[in-house]
């Protein structure tokens, strides 16, 4: 009889151990299997949500600052501005730069795409998409509204977006002309009309094509060098505080350019 009870006890312990281990292995296999099945399928094309990092082509140092391949044809207005701008990037970097970003004025579009350090988070919500570039954020309305007729210039402009097949097309106007088009000092006017086309190429890659239409600054519409972004898993937002670099102890700010009125 005693032996039987030992047997029963052993059986109970084995059963108990099974209860402990089974749910774990079950949970693990449940967790891994659908994930791999999902990887094989194409990512839903109409989803841009997540944190993205600009992917630099190998040996392409210019990608850090340039949005431009061939020099776009500037108007006389733009040439004058371009000559007055003293960028710290490009073929002739200046030590005494008057880059508005060094006064901690916000980067506007499309300049936000001209920095490899930039990490961008896209949040899709009903009726709008929010894009975070650190403290610079922009909202793209997807509720069918049009651009309002009487806008003052905005740091990030006024943006409306819609899906065209697998491409999210963003139309932006009323971008403040205080900041530059890129880090090389190319100017733009507040008549800049920017078209962005976001498309997911695969599971982890997104491509962005930019069309710049600014009749005051450029004699024809031109396309910037396409940007490629890679999806970052479990990314953490970076607290990029410009003042850490450009504001001194006595609170003096680097005086660069007139403000936006």
């Amino acid at each position, binding site marked *: 009889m005693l032996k039987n009870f030992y047997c029963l006890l052993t059986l109970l312990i084995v059963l108990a151990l099974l209860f402990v281990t089974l*749910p774990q292995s079950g949970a693990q296999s449940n967790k891994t299997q659908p994930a791999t099945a999902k990887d094989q399928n194409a990512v839903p094309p109409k989803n841009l949500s997540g944190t993205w990092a600009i992917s630099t082509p190998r040996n392409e140092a210019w990608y850090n600052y340039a949005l431009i391949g061939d020099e776009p044809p500037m108007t006389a207005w733009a040439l004058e501005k371009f000559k007055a701008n003293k960028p710290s990037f490009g073929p002739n970097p200046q030590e005494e730069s008057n880059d508005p970003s060094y006064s901690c004025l916000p980067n506007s579009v499309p300049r936000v795409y001209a920095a490899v350090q930039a990490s961008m988070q896209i949040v899709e919500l009903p009726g709008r998409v929010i894009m975070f570039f650190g403290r610079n954020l922009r909202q793209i309305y997807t509720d069918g509204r049009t651009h309002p007729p009487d806008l003052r210039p905005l740091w990030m402009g006024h943006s409306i977006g819609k899906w065209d097949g697998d491409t999210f097309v963003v139309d932006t106007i009323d971008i403040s002309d205080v900041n530059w088009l890129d880090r090389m000092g190319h100017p733009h006017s507040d008549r800049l009309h920017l078209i962005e086309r976001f498309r997911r190429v695969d599971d982890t890659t997104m491509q962005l094509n930019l069309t710049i239409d600014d009749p005051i600054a450029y004699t024809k519409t031109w396309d910037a060098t396409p940007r490629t972004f890679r999806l970052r898993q479990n990314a953490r937002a970076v607290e990029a505080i410009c003042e850490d670099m450009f504001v001194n102890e006595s609170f003096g700010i680097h005086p660069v350019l007139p*403000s936006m009125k």
Partner: protein
Amino acid sequence: MRKHPMYAVLGVLLLFASFSIALAQMAEKSGTTEPQKTAPADLSGLWVVHPPASASAYSSFAFAKDVPPMTDWGEEKYKAAKPVFGTNKTMAKQSNDPVYGCFPPGLPRIYLHPKPIEIVQLPDEVIMMFEYDRIVRHIYIDGRPHDEFLDPPLWMGDSIGKWEGDTLVIDTIGFNDKTWLDRAGHPHSDALHVVERMRRLNHETLSDDITIEDPKAYTKPWTAQTRFQLRPDLALDWEGVCENEKLADRQ
């Protein structure tokens, strides 16, 4: 033979114990591996700070009527601060308030600036967008730990959160010591630990119970409370830039 009942009891106990361990592990697993599809509460919306009327005498610049108990280190820092509010107030021109240098206001001070706050709730994080100084807080609720490799430390700290019932408990550490806790110049060190319990009291009201723990600056933890009112009639204005306003003043 006399031992039989004891073995049976022992066996049954073991079985129960293993059951509860397994259940606990299952609960833990579902909590950490899969972000909750439906959060227990929805804090999203556009909010404006709305402290209770009983705090109206000081609510624009401090969380508490009385000065919290400071350490010697804290006292010294408090004396060096030249705020434009509170018992040590001075004129704006003489002030060394960090926000006058366009530096971020820090936490919980940011709640003393009455500008709209938009909360967006996602499965893995709660994002708080403060119109004041264009500050964005990302509060990760996906079970990740604090970032241990913060160098330099942060102006607004490193925030993680979890749901306790319908309350979002936000734990923030990793601060630098360059900001003030309020607009009256109360200091904090880099050991500051802020715990917030954020809960929707009703559809229109959000409450935030704040515990401030900083053994370098204060002799004991102290608490603060603030409330927010839902303002769907407002929209977030992200155009105000501190440096731009300073440059405009100069012209």
